[in-house]
């Protein structure tokens, strides 16, 4: 008894201290980050500090892999890069609120934020293209824009109405706030759609792919990096979803992956962003992970969707 009591006490106290430490983690991170930022000004030779990138799960694999390699480089070894998911909305909120150094997003900040978007600086690091996919048993090779609109707005509910076999259409969507869905709706359908009765909404592209590949009559959309033989990739207006077609601008269903900073980035953040924009990463990791390098794009697109060469 005598021995147990103090032990229990110490354990609980330790727990309390740990909990308290957890609570103040954010402010600590902030203060250390700002502290190191000041240090950088005095010693410009070697950068040090921590970089926190939060947001889009679609961009996360690329940023994570780039961060690993970045930290392994000898001149950046004192910079600590942390990458977190959480979604585009979280990324934009945290970067404009100052909790994160970089906010990763699938969409332009202007589409989610209002006035706060003006303070954010856009760094486009890659391009992601999406393709409509169906269950292989549907047996369709091509869908026009109008057919896709009819399917996703519920005007057409059977595949035979668009030239397929007699089978009910099952829509597998991403949630209405998802960046992937926004891109698909904006550039493939040209209109936003509501969640139809009986349609399926899934949180991740992996689950969408699993359900589309298993459910007869299912249709969904996936980023090019997710495509394989399990699902049938459908041509859009007769154009195949390939890297070349996206780069030349003939295949329109694509979007930039953005890394936003608030104002001009701190030196260590800028070093990391420059590293991602470097040829080594753009032609290496970006391609390897199924994204398209921004430098390869022959067309450009602004916030309003206007295309320029």
């Amino acid at each position, binding site marked *: 008894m005598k021995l147990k009591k103090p032990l229990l006490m110490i354990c609980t106290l330790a727990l*309390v201290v740990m909990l308290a430490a957890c609570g103040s983690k954010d402010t600590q991170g902030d203060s250390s980050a700002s502290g190191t930022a000041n240090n950088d000004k005095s010693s410009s030779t070697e950068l040090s500090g921590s970089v926190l990138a939060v947001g889009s799960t679609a961009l996360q694999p690329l940023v994570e892999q780039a961060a690993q390699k970045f930290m392994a480089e000898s001149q950046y070894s004192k910079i600590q890069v942390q990458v977190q998911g959480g*979604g585009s*909305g979280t990324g934009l909120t945290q970067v404009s609120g100052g909790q994160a150094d970089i906010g990763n997003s699938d969409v332009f900040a202007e589409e989610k934020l209002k006035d706060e978007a003006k303070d954010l600086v856009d760094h486009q690091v890659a391009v992601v293209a999406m393709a409509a996919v169906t269950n292989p048993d549907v047996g369709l090779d091509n869908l026009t824009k109008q057919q896709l609109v009819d399917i996703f707005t519920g005007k057409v509910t059977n595949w035979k109405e668009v030239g397929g076999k007699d089978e009910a259409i099952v829509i597998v969507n991403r*949630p209405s706030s*998802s960046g992937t869905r926004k891109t698909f709706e904006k550039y493939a359908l040209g209109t*936003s759609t*509501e*969640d139809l009765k009986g349609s399926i*909404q899934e949180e991740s592209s992996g689950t969408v792919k699993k359900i589309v590949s*298993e459910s007869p009559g299912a249709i969904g959309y996936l980023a090019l990096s997710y495509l394989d033989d399990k699902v049938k990739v459908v041509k859009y207006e007769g154009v195949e979803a390939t890297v070349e077609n996206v780069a030349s601008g003939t295949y329109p269903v694509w979007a930039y992956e953005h890394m936003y900073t608030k104002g001009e980035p701190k030196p260590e953040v800028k070093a990391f962003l420059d590293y991602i924009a470097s040829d080594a990463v753009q032609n290496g990791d970006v391609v390897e992970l199924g994204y398209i390098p921004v430098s390869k794009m022959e067309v450009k697109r602004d916030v309003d969707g206007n295309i320029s060469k």
Partner: protein
Amino acid sequence: MKAMDERPVQVGSARSARFKKHHAEDLAGRSYTFICVALLIVIIISIIYFVASKGLATFFRDGVSLGDFLFGTTWDPEGNQGEPMYGVLPFIFGSFATSLLAALIASPLSICASLFMTEIVPGWGKKLLQPVIELLAGIPSVVYGFIGLTVVVPFMRNVFPGQGIGIAAGALVLSVMILPTITSVASDALSSLPRGLKESSFALGATRWQTISRVILPTVLPSILTGVVLGMARAFGEALAVQMVIGNAPHIPRSLFESASTLTSVITLDMGNTVMGSTHSNALWSMALALMFMTFIFVLIVRLLERRHRI
């Protein structure tokens, strides 16, 4: 203690010293527990305050009416069809439907399991079932969801009409998840019954089945119901496993095999993609507030059941 043996001092001062020591110990213990309790209360209150301040902003700052929120059937926070609509009735319906159905499936199974463990085969039955049920309780919900998606959903798709996704699949997955909760509460209640009750029943010539159905079950019914309510509370709050198999269409489904949503599934689905402070995000917090409110009600029901049991 040692110091006292070596140096015999006046009795009065020794007693006061000992008294002081005990007093100090008492004080230390008191203040230590008080700090722990205060911390706990602060944490709970700040959580409630945070959720409430975000959740109530939907109504007070963003001007969504409570009636439209609770009883509206259209969920269109992005305003795809004109005005944004924040009707969460389909999600409340989905949450209740899945958790009630799950409790309905799980209760008979768990009551039978606990009877088997405590009354019918108390020896090897308990030795075999106890670890199995504890194991069930320890499996993470992602695993349940994944199994649901790979096993339950294709099974439902092949056997029933529809895509296999929906309330039925969600309830089935949940029922396995709440099985351990109900079983352990029920078997605890059963094993705490006074021996005399059963023995007098046997002495009166009742068979084992008669004893179980007429004496034991009616006596422990309130405790079993407590277990069922606790299980439902868990089912109501479960997010991940349900979200993976229910389909997440924001509509009240026409059948058990059609895509539906629960409060938790919508929150997990949307929260990463919304911007803090927007009405959409606040509406999600309001749903969290509704969930918390439901939990309070479940706790209240459990309290009432316990009180009835005591009398």
